[in-house]
């Protein structure tokens, strides 16, 4: 399958500066909110302040009478029209899912849910009038705490009769991929080691920088929607499916999109509302959310309790792992919501050879903002759990945490390796990545410094954290998705148009929002077709230009979309060959294509691909029966996931008198296969690292007792600043993927997946002399300080919002038992 050796590699591997940058650094951007259309009306949302309430009356008379208000719409007004927002991944056939209206009709299920919409001539007038909408609520008890909700003490949706949405299990004995985990645990209890831990994955907010915005223009034959979305193609399909307008009459455009991180992998109430209102009014409409609305009502991520049981022999060889998850879905089962923890199901065994494994996940409905994909989606949670456990096992045995990992990991000569989950890891070399990372980090020196500080009882202690992660990315083989009951496939589409002037237009179905597709795709096509980098134009993100695609998420664009590109380019070459042969008066069998030129074997005769394109356009002299076109397209369905891995090492300094954590050094060596553009890769790694570090140290969505999000602005939701972070030392080892022809693996989520446990392991490592085994995330100074004061027995703090008084910030998601241990 691999043809890597024959391919000229002038562009792939080069640190090309991005084509995208010019418009972004000069302000000539096309954000959705920039769009102004003639006669455009503006929407403002009236949102519920209550987590759970019955709507007894909505009085819109004062709002309707306000200046320049066109209309005010309530849920009752669109009850028949709006249908329910889609859930594309019902993880079990009997999954319980409440109907999810775009505008609540008679009950609200989370604080921030839309109850009415004001349409006015300006955004300011719409917002002013929204204040005048008078909604009467009858407050209902709210299901807020995840553990309590799992016991159905208070029902998030009383009509469902339970908060339990779905129970999903993978068992290696049942699947025939491994042994029985209960047997392994029983054996370890008698003559081995059992490590039992419970970890909290706090609720996070994706917090993309561009607030979501949507414009809908119903004029003409089509309804056109511009949206700050990661998924224009999926959105178009679902607008049609839910709202009944034929798909062929809908065009969705994702113009410049300011970050997503999974947060814009959603079909939102606001998009559906804007579509319905534009269709009703026959006028273009715009809605742009405020940051507070974004933090409150755009979906959240993570939010799990993880109960973990690791069985090992006395020498530290792991014999089994059992995982019991509670996952908070929030108020509704959103687009991929229930599937997020399932994406982690196959990753708890990570890089290790575990003979027995069981994964149990209960998804739970609560009266909070719904959760869905956030960078890594399921895999960061899995990686955190296992990398924390491996440190605990090492601590139990009193050995170096890297040694215990090496003892259990898959050796490089064992690839391809089929895991206890039945996945086939195609390639990897954990020894090489770890050796390189250790050297860059100065591992032995830092361990020596740690010992000196411990011996000297230095108030500033050093902690060293390790994470040897892998992930499955490149979502995804359609057959696998089908077997998991996901509603769509995982293929990607590309087409290539050969213009008569020798320029090349590339259309990709994966829609970028900061990843640099225009640059990387140009590099791939330039090499493949032997044309100049500058001559390639990449088009994406508009369903009229790019009619087919499954969009961007799950580190899929390059490994799936890039492969579609390669296949389309190869088709162009195949179509050009008979034409070139005809023009060169040679047999097609004698034509060879190299570096952009069709040559005749054994001669110096040849034609550049651009010349063939021009001749094909003119069509004056083509072989009989050959169509006058070189344009080609390809739809590629991946044969496997890709499995990047890496070794991340982190050193933190902890002031034991204040609990303050300071990042000292962070080294990572990621093996992501072949690299198309090292500059873009570095950017993905840096940004990913900071998002993962932020989970470990700063970020948490905190609700009060009433279910109101108190971290609903950037004052309180602590997205890190430049002053909070450090520069990183990043490097790579290379084990090319064997399942795609470019040999690439995903990188978009790697940093986020790997870094969180590396940092928490470092914090806990620094505090081991005090008997501390866990500090709950985010590891705030308060939590760290209390962990030191309390020693190993004390609970770490539940809430992490130092701006508020304790009574205002009781973290209802923390559970009755308080902290992890």
């Amino acid at each position: 399958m691999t043809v890597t050796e024959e391919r000229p590699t002038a562009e792939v591997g080069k640190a090309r500066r991005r084509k995208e940058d010019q418009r972004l650094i000069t302000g000539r951007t096309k954000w959705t909110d920039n769009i102004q259309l003639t006669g455009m009306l503006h929407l403002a949302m009236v949102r519920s302040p209550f987590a759970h309430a019955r709507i007894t009356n909505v009085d819109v008379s004062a709002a309707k009478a306000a200046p320049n208000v066109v209309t005010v719409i309530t849920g009752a007004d669109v009850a028949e029209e709006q249908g329910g927002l889609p859930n594309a991944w019902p993880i079990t056939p009997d999954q319980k899912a409440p109907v999810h209206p775009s505008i609540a009709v008679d009950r609200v299920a989370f604080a921030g849910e839309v109850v009415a919409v004001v349409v006015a001539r300006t955004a300011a007038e719409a917002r002013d009038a929204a204040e005048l909408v008078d909604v009467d609520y009858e407050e209902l008890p709210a299901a807020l705490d995840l553990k309590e909700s799992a016991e159905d003490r208070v029902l998030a949706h009383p009509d469902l009769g339970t908060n339990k949405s779905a129970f999903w299990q993978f068992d290696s004995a049942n699947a025939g991929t491994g042994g029985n985990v209960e047997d392994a645990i029983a054996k370890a209890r008698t003559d081995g080691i059992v490590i039992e831990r419970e970890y909290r994955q706090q609720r996070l907010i994706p917090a993309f920088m561009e607030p979501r915005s949507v414009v809908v223009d119903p004029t003409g034959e089509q309804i056109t929607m511009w949206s700050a979305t990661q998924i224009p193609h999926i959105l178009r399909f679902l607008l049609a499916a839910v709202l009944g307008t034929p798909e062929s009459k809908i065009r969705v455009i994702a113009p410049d999109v300011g970050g997503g991180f999974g947060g814009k992998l959603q079909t939102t109430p606001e998009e559906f509302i804007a579509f319905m209102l534009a269709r009703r009014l026959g006028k273009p409409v715009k809605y742009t959310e405020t940051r507070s609305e974004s933090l409150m009502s755009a979906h959240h991520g993570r939010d799990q309790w993880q109960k973990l049981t690791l069985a090992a022999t006395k020498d530290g060889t792991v014999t089994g792992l059992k995982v019991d998850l509670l996952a908070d879905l929030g108020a509704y089962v959103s687009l991929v919501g229930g599937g997020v923890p399932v994406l982690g199901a196959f990753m708890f065994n990570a890089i290790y050879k575990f003979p027995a494994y069981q994964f149990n996940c209960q998804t739970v409905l609560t009266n909070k903002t719904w959760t869905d994909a956030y960078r890594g989606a399921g895999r960061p949670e899995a990686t955190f759990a296992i990398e924390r456990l491996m440190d605990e096992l090492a601590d139990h045995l009193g050995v170096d945490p890297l040694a215990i990992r090496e003892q259990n990991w898959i050796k490089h000569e064992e690839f391809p390796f089929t895991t206890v989950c039945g996945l086939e890891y195609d390639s990897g070399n954990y020894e090489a990545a770890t050796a390189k990372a250790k050297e860059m980090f100065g591992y032995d020196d830092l361990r020596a410094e740690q010992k000196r500080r411990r011996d000297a009882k230095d108030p500033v202690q050093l902690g060293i954290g390790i994470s040897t992660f892998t992930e499955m990315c490149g979502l995804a083989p359609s057959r696998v998705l089908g077997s998991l009951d996901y509603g769509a496939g995982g293929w990607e589409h590309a087409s290539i148009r050969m213009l008569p002037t020798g320029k090349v237009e590339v259309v990709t179905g994966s829609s970028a929002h900061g990843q640099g597709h225009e640059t990387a795709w140009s590099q791939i096509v330039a090499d493949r077709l032997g044309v100049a980098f500058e001559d390639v134009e990449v088009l994406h993100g508009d369903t009229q230009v790019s009619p087919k695609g499954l969009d961007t998420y799950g580190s899929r664009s390059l490994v799936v979309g890039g492969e579609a590109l390669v296949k389309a380019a190869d088709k162009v070459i195949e179509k050009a060959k008979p034409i070139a042969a005809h023009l060169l008066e040679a047999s097609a069998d004698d034509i060879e294509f190299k570096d952009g030129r069709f040559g005749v074997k054994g001669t110096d005769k040849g034609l550049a691909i651009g010349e063939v394109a021009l001749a094909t356009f003119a069509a004056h002299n083509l072989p009989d029966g050959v169509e006058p076109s070189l344009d080609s397209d390809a739809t590629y369905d991946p044969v496997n996931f890709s499995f990047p891995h890496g070794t991340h090492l982190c050193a933190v300094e902890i002031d034991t008198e204040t609990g303050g954590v300071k990042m000292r050094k962070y080294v990572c060596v990621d093996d992501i296969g072949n690299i198309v553009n090292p500059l873009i890769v570095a950017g993905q790694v840096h940004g990913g690292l900071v998002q993962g570090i932020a989970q470990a140290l700063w970020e948490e969505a905190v609700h009060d007792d009433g279910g109101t999000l108190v971290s609903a602005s950037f004052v309180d939701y602590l997205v890190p600043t430049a002053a909070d972070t450090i520069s990183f030392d990043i490097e790579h080892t290379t084990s090319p993927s064997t399942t795609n022809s470019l040999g690439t693996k995903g990188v978009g989520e790697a940093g986020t997946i790997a870094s969180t446990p590396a940092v928490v392991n470092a914090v806990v490592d620094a505090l081991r002399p005090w008997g501390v085994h866990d500090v709950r995330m985010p590891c705030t100074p308060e939590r760290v300080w209390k962990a030191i004061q309390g020693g190993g027995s004390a609970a770490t703090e539940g809430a992490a919002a130092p701006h508020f008084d304790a009574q205002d910030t009781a973290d209802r998601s923390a559970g009755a038992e308080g902290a992890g241990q």
Partner: protein
Amino acid sequence: MKINVTVDGASYADDVEPRMLLVHYLRERLGKTGTVVGCDTSNCGACTVHLDGQSVKSCNVLAVQADGHDVTTIEGLAKDGQLHPVQAAFHECHALQCGFCTPGMIMQSIDLLNDNPHPSEAEVRAGLEGNLCRCTGYHNIVKAVQTAAGTGAPA
């Protein structure tokens, strides 16, 4: 209220509501959509512009306060098709991904370099504390500012 303001070298006379923010005036009245809104609490800095040569968050300034003053936005930086050295450094160092924070980040970086032409890494990080970026992890932004400093960037 009537205001007269110079933006990116051009003079404008307008009648605005007293409550109108400078960022809304720039975006909605003048079409200066290079300057963007990222939050409601003046935390993110995406809307940073220069007012008489000093960086301000334009969500924190009323349009009427700009009356009689000179505003420079990201759109006024490049002259005759030549990028400002800080713009060029952001491109060269891959200091942007989605690009939404970039206008504010560049405007703040220029201000920082005007105050301190040769900042240390720590000084760059402290100087950019009021501007949030979610994509880059700041690593390459810091590098870009130091690169620009090395080439004598400040305007």
